[in-house]
């Protein structure tokens, strides 16, 4: 029982990341009709917002203390982060919570990047075939990757979770199962965070006038335009919103997966499978498929399952995608007419 619950928890935090990336992907596809292969790069850029914020907090003063020497005979360098020297305990607190605080940097940065990307490049490809869109956005992803590699290097840069959430949560105790069911705090927080972001995006689209117009535009772009609404401008904001979602998902994932320039590509492929399984352009489908595939992947990595079908953990997602597309060609919640031309 514990093993099953653990795999469900494990699948939920993975599924959270898949769902957040797939949500942005399908939002862009549903509104703009663009297959954005640079979306994984936006996830990676978000993660590097956390790295940048942490680097800024780590700027330090160096004072040589001649009274102490190192083991190799040179005077000891005493290093103090400026932030802690300036702000004392609050500086140390800020340092400890650098990952969640870097969301404050990531939101405006990702919004600007998203809008510039859409206005500067993507909009020129609205009426071009999907193959052209894929080529140009894939090329853009490679350019972004190489820029990050140039400035941050090719190696993963670990980002610590706040001390208070770096340890283990004894989830079993809540259900009276003792300490047998334990799970890292940060992964639980990531899952809850992903639920919060997904809820906020749905609430924005469902309960605001702006969201209502966007949804109407997704259904019938021309009619909304005829009503005198500048739907293109709204869709630009939607692109910005999708990149913010990908970005904050990347920020919060850094304590789980140390970011490197290539991390977006690893998630992009899986997220596309999630979008296809969920149904192209379906927000609910993307979220449901994200969590479903995350949990299935987790179960497939149990030793008991791998003993029966070796290597199943590496292919389960693609296998499920094949089965679902054979039985439900539009995916789990796909709408009629989307990507069927």
């Amino acid at each position, binding site marked *: 029982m514990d093993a099953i619950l653990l795999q469900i928890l*494990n699948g939920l*935090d993975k599924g959270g990341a898949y769902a957040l990336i797939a949500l942005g992907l399908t939002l862009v596809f549903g509104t703009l009709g663009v297959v954005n292969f640079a979306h994984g790069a936006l996830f990676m850029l978000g993660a590097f917002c956390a790295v940048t914020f942490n680097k800024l907090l780590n700027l330090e003063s160096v004072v040589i203390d001649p009274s102490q020497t190192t083991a190799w005979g040179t005077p000891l360098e005493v290093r103090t982060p400026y932030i802690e020297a300036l702000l004392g305990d609050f500086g140390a607190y800020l340092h400890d919570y650098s990952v969640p605080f870097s969301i404050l940097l990531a939101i405006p940065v990702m919004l600007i990047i998203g809008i510039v990307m859409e206005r500067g490049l993507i909009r020129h490809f609205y009426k071009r075939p999907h193959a052209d869109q894929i080529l140009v956005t894939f090329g853009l992803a490679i350019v972004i990757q190489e820029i990050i590699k140039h400035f941050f290097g*090719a*190696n993963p840069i670990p980002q610590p979770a706040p001390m208070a959430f770096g*340890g283990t949560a*004894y989830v079993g105790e809540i259900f009276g199962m003792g300490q047998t069911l334990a799970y*890292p705090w940060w992964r639980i927080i990531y899952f809850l965070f992903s639920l919060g972001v997904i809820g906020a995006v749905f609430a924005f689209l469902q309960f605001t006038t702006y969201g209502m117009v966007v949804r109407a535009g997704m259904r019938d772009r021309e009619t909304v335009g005829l009503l005198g609404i500048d739907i293109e401008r709204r869709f630009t904001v939607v692109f910005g919103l999708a990149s913010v979602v990908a970005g904050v998902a990347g920020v919060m994932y850094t304590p789980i997966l140390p970011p490197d320039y290539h991390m977006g590509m690893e998630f992009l492929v899986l997220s596309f499978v999630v979008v296809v399984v969920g149904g192209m352009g379906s927000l609910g489908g993307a979220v449901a498929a994200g969590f479903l595939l995350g949990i299935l*992947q987790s179960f497939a990595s149990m*030793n008991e399952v791998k003993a029966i079908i070796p290597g199943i953990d590496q292919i389960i997602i693609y296998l499920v995608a094949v089965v679902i597309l054979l039985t439900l060609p539009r995916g789990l919640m796909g709408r009629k007419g989307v990507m069927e031309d």
Partner: protein
Amino acid sequence: MSKFIMTRRGLLRAGAASGVALAAPMHFIRGAYAEDISCNMPKGDTVTFGWSVPLTGPYADEGADELKAFQLAVKHLNGEGDGGMIPTMKPAALKGNGVLGKKVAQVHGDSQTKTDAARDNSKRMIERDGAIMISGGSSSAEAVAVQSLCQDMGVIHMSGLTHSNDTTGKDKKRYGFRHFFNAYQSGVALGPVIAEAYGKDRKAYHLTADYTWGWTQEESMKAATEALGWQTVAAVRTPLGSADFSQYITPVLNSGADVLILNHYGKDMVNSLTQSVQFGLRDKEVNGKKFEIVVPLFSELMAQGAGDAVKGIYGTSNWDWKLDDDATKAFTKSFGQEYGAPPSQAAHTCYVQALLYADACERAGTFFAPAVIKALEGFEFDGLGNGSTLYRAEDHQCMKSCLVVQGKENPKDKYDLMEIVKVVPREVTTYDPAIFGGELGPSDAKQC
């Protein structure tokens, strides 16, 4: 009576015939003049060494430290700086004026912790840059691949950090030499220490990096612990370079195992150990015993990456900068003054390999590869940080002491993370070279 008359034409004919007659034997002995030529022997006033080091990928931290060590070694070989371990090495033929009077030049390439990139690098350095010797690498897969290439090209490979039994076992090569210890020696050294610390009734679960080093490390640890009475519950392979080990760690929690053995190195180990601790493994009690984690191959660089998770963890190490011998002190001082941090075991082994190759050339009196191989085979030396050491002729593996280490509970600073628990002597770590099979192959000189 006939009269001998030499005409001008006759003289020319006789001269030509004599020339042909005298030159004919040269056709049969011309190889005799080429036999002292091997690949990339230096013609000018420099000799080029090639470093193939992983500057990216899961072993990048080790690779960066290796490159620093090589650069320091070249400095010392050329007579610059304080000489590092050259004055402490015994016997030493090095004079501090380059090698055989030629200044040492160097080239390097990023092997990316990938075998194909490592081979491409090495081939480029041999063919384009004229490297006479290749060294470096932090992965056994790289070492095995590159030493095989070097065997084919007739260039000596002084491997860096490689710990698989295969490097000097089934995949050993005449042109390949390893100073670093191996997985078998880790098992022999570590087994008795963890059996004493954790008892003989234990159930172990292995997570193993899925390539040559991981396989032999797992095999050696299983052999060592099972001989002491431990049971192996499961051994699960993980892809090299995995960042998220959660899917491999969760099955451990309910497997009935009370020890997790992480046959991981570099960033893999940093991630798997940190995540194991996050999953609460070290706080667990299983089978009435405290759950323990063991990392058979350990380094200061990994300890820095893993932070507090490393406290109390047992492992083995080839060398540590805190050893109390003159050679270690001299190297730590040189390295620390140059780079502001103490050297890692990866840096140490690479520095030593560069010195040993240069010294062998001096002792052989030539750069001719077969002669240098002969000079290295069976060479007994001291004063390079591991005590009395033998470069064993049968498998080109160094026989020397190694260390059992433990993550320090109260480190003084970020470089003081490991405590030396035991120095396991050479007599204990020495084994029969026949147990791992393999053939060294020929030492024929090649021209490239």
